[in-house]
């Protein structure tokens, strides 16, 4: 029993320590470039969070790409997930396999291949190619989550809607979609999270564009400013907020 409790706290510490360090060093009153030793508490970095123009620009680019790829992967992935969960069609097995293939293929290889593809197709690298790449790898996650939900959905619900005079289109929007919405939502959050901190694939497809993770990677060699910790903390807090709201609403249902 005591062993079990100790084990539990060990796991909790393992999961939260890095986050605690990230948050704490956002309050570090560091004088120099190196935010690695504790020099006392301050709130000044929160006041100067957008003081570094390059970093701020990188953050906005990342947010924009994450939002765009979340929406695109959400729409496309929902369609694929619904089709895979509801119908058996020629090639559905292949699509199913493809979903898992893209999820399990190494990011480095995927990034390098995408670079080859874009270059040989003569597409200029930038935010658009990054978004295409992000949609490409997050679509499977949305599809898999939505498919799982559709499979548990009682088929007679859609039949009942049709029986009551709803066209297939109305049936989807009035019955199916509201019922799979939680799955669509979590799939989209997953897509957002995958996109905003992606480094490997982004590095290959960015060209001269600098995203938030790319900026941090570049900055580590000359020392990370505390603003990075502040931004990380804020992104983390938004994530926590969404998770809490989600679980409260789920409990109320």
């Amino acid at each position: 029993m005591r062993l079990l409790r100790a084990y539990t706290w060990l796991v909790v510490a393992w999961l939260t320590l890095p986050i605690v360090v990230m948050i704490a060093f956002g309050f570090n009153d560091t004088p120099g470039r190196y935010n690695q030793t504790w020099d006392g508490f301050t709130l000044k970095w929160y006041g100067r969070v957008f003081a570094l123009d390059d970093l701020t620009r990188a953050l906005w680019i990342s947010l924009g790409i994450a939002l765009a790829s979340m929406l695109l992967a959400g729409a496309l992935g929902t369609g694929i997930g619904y089709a895979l969960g509801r119908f058996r069609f020629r090639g559905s097995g292949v699509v199913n396999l493809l979903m898992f293939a893209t999820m399990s293929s190494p990011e480095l290889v995927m990034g390098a291949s995408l670079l080859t593809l874009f270059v040989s197709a003569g597409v200029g690298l930038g935010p658009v190619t990054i978004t295409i790449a992000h949609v490409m790898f997050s679509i499977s996650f949305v599809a898999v989550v939505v498919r799982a939900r559709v499979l548990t959905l009682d088929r007679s619900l859609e039949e009942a809607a049709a029986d009551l005079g709803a066209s297939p289109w109305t049936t989807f929007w009035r019955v199916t979609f509201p019922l799979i919405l939680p799955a669509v939502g979590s799939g989209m959050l997953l897509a957002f999270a995958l996109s905003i901190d992606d480094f490997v694939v982004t590095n290959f497809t960015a060209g001269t564009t600098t995203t938030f993770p790319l900026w941090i990677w570049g900055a580590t060699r000359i020392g990370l400013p505390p603003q990075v910790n502040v931004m990380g903390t804020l992104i983390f807090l938004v994530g926590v907020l969404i998770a809490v709201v989600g679980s409260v609403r789920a409990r109320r249902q």
Partner: protein
Amino acid sequence: MGEAAIELAGVHKEFAVHGERVQAVRRLDLTVAQGEFFSLLGPSGCGKTTTMRMIAGFEEPTGGTVRLDGQDVTGVAPHKRDVNMVFQSYALFPHLTAYENVAFGLERKRVARGEIRKRVGEMLDIVSLTGMDKRAPRELSGGQQQRVALARALVNRPRALLLDEPLGALDLKLRQQMQTELKRIQREVGITFVYVTHDQGEALTMSDRIAVMRAGAIEQLGPPRAIYERPVTRFVAGFIGTSNIIDGTVERVDDGVAVLTYGPGERVLVPTTAAAGTALEVSVRPEKIDLSREQPAGTGCSMLSGVVKDVVYHGTSTNYTVTTAAGPDLVVFDQNARDAEDLAGPGDRVHLTWSPQHSYPIGVS
């Protein structure tokens, strides 16, 4: 009975199961009259649900024609057919309230708001759910959910209401209550009901007519009394209630009553036109048979004597299993109207008698 609400003409349905063609429904001809309570009764896999789903439009027949009110609807999508269905699982929309569930069909038909409110309110009253309109399906009991499902279908005033084993998920008491309720509602709204069930008691209680189905075809079609009292095949006799089947050969025919004998004084009388020498299967319902310990004086009756093998007490009646010379053991239901000491016990010698009109020759199936 009025004109036809539903007509199936030569309808059949094949499914491909693991590359093999399976006949789910074979060349079915069926007419359901306007305002009728019609039941499709049979064991699972007999094609009753497939038949109903072809009327609703969820399955397309491989061949044949489906007509609603004389109109050919074969190939018409379900949402364009003027019939509504009550699903076995109720299929209530979990994200909508009871009111929104019931209003769903009317909204699709673009009925005016005020009209919807009025009709949904009326319908919730009819199914005794007044004041439940804001509840979500999961906040309702099984019986209440069942009523919402019924109201949701009926509110559209369909040409026919299709019910797929709607009481299957309810407990016995509630099921019996809902049977009476369903019949009342059907009389009140005057809509044609097509009722799919495997429960013969349910079908007998509620239906105007019953089609007993087996292996994709109708075995017998008629009012409950005819189905129960005069089963035409061994299958129907066995499926509806309990039946005794006696095999024999016609010895002679007196005034249209065939006599089958099984020894001195052991005889079964059957009203039939079969000639002497014909092999017959005769069905007798257990409650038609009189059991007594004294030798009955009656003539002009079927009479068999035997030994009681088993006695099961059921409260209102006692069921006896009796071994006779006429072949398989016979089952006798005896109303518990007499004194307890009069009851026969296992091993007792008893005499069974019944009137000729309670024996029915059945076709070989």
